[in-house]
């Protein structure tokens, strides 16, 4: 073997190793670009909340702490007042700084969405597994319960909450919404469990004397994870949309700034006709960002679990 051959071989080997490394990276389906972008957008919102809290004066979320209805920097409002650096995203009709509002509000909306669907999903997982695995009367009860719950309008319950407590906290709101997002994971998991019960490896596990809970959580759960992830993201979206809907109705938390409540106040104050677009527009933009983030994660997850969808 000549030395040039040898060198060529080394080079080829290097190239191959590099290629293998790259392949590995690309082959990891979790590094899907949509997934990364989606997660990035959500993280940006969380970061806005965390970093904003450190850098910005949060006293500005209180009524009357700023001049009214100032536009964002570089714009002018109907009264020809220009935006100022002190309130770069403008102020609302009660003298509150929009930037401070979204620093406080945006993570709150995300928090409600995540918490609600986390609780909802956990309930759904437990009930879905129980219904699918135990079957019989238990299954009937869970099915009827979820059918009943899906028919009851959440508004009714929230109105009662409000009259009982005067106000709802973020956690209470999340709990309430969780009461309306557990049904679909329950159904999904029940159906999956029923079909998986027939599959070989679960029967094998049963024959080998594994306990029911072991089979449920050690054998079946891991196989359901892609479904659960997709379902989780979908329910976060639903929960945020529901929460914002309630806030826009004026039924959300009263004293805690949320994006929905900011939009509610803007609409109540006639912000549209006054061309105070930053008041409703910026929170809406943030909601849209959140939604796009969740949508991208959802699309990304589909591609992870369904390679056919991956682009060349």
């Amino acid at each position: 073997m000549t030395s040039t051959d040898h060198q060529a071989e080394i080079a080829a080997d290097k190239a191959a190793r590099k290629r293998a490394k790259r392949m590995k990276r690309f082959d990891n389906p979790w590094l899907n670009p949509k997934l990364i972008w989606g997660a990035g957008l959500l993280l940006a919102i969380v970061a806005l909340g965390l970093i904003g809290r450190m850098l910005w004066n949060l006293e500005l979320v209180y009524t009357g702490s700023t001049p009214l209805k100032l536009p964002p920097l570089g714009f002018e409002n109907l009264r020809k007042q220009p935006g100022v650096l002190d309130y770069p995203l403008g102020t609302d009709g009660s003298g509150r700084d929009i930037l401070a509002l979204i620093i406080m509000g945006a993570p709150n909306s995300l928090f409600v969405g995540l918490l609600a669907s986390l609780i909802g999903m956990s309930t759904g997982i437990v009930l879905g597994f129980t219904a699918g695995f135990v079957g019989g009367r238990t299954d009937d009860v869970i099915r009827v319960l979820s059918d009943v719950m899906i028919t009851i309008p959440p508004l009714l319950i929230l109105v009662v909450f409000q009259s009982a407590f005067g106000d709802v906290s973020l956690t209470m709101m999340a709990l309430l919404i969780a009461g309306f997002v557990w049904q679909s994971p329950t159904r999904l998991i029940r159906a999956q469990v029923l079909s998986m019960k027939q599959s070989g490896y679960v029967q094998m596990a049963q024959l080998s004397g594994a306990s029911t809970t072991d089979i449920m959580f050690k054998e079946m759960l891991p196989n359901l994870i892609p479904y659960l992830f997709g379902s989780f993201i979908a329910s976060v979206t639903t929960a945020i949309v529901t929460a914002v809907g309630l806030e826009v109705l004026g039924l959300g938390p009263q004293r805690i700034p949320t994006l929905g409540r900011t939009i509610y106040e803007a609409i109540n104050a006639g912000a549209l006709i006054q061309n105070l677009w930053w008041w409703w527009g910026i929170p809406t933009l943030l909601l849209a960002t959140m939604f796009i983030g969740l949508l991208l994660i959802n699309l990304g997850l589909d591609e992870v679990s369904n390679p056919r969808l991956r682009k060349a």
Partner: protein
Amino acid sequence: MSEPVLSVRGLKVYYATPDGDVLATDDISFDLERGETLGLVGESGSGKTTATSGILRMVSSPGRIAGGRVTLDGEDMIALSDEEFRKRRWSKLALIPQGAMNSLNPTMKISAQIADVVRTHTGAAPDRARVLELFQMVGLPERIYEMYPHELSGGMKQRVCIAMAVALNPTVIIADEATSALDVVVQRVVAQTLAKVRDALGVSMIMIGHDMGLMAQMVDRIAVMYAGKIVEIAPVADMFARPGHPYSKILIESVPSLTERRPMKITEGITHDPRNPPEGCIFQLRCPHVNDGCTKPQPMRELRPGQTVACHRAEELEGAHV
């Protein structure tokens, strides 16, 4: 010999991956004579189904037809527009699919699924008598006319697929492992039905499968595929008597008799990375007879009339045991 009804030349179907193309079907060429049945064999993943996808232009993303020519009745199939090609489908080139269990639309009646293909290509729906005639041809009872797929057994569904394939008297039928999902008895009966229909209509057929025993009974010639390439084509008798390629030998020796079945002989050695095939013979990593010459390109060459093979040691190995 007359003009072949179907001629495939240098067909390449590549699947794109982030790290370069997978050569699912690389440069395959063969002819199908009129009235002939060609068997296409090889182990799973050897590119048999991909090859038919290429011929049927049903390669979906991320795959693509990277080159080659398919001529059917003297017409270049690859050059046709999508819409033109769609019109050729089924009327000239029909498919009996691999998974008959799931190949029928669960929400449409059997008769409607036969009717819609006829209507699409002839402009008029077939009358009931024609559909029943097709049923009779494949041995299906009349009562299934009003039935839905889930009400049929697997064998019946496969017959429906056969009936559907011949509904328009196509020039060529591709039977893609048409019987592999069925149990042995049913398999035999369905295969007989298929043979019967083929003989009755005199249609040319490409039969895909890995069951050499079944092939021996059904086909006129056999093409053996390995890792996306055709390594040998020969008349069925020659193939069984004097296989030219070591891989063909392995396949054949895995069939001890026509009645007894046993798994294909497992060969030692590693398969190559499909993105990065070795220089020269595609089979060199698993071939028991590999030598230095195997790293040189192995073009198909004629071993004897009608039998072509892609192995430079074909002559010396002939007769040798694996």
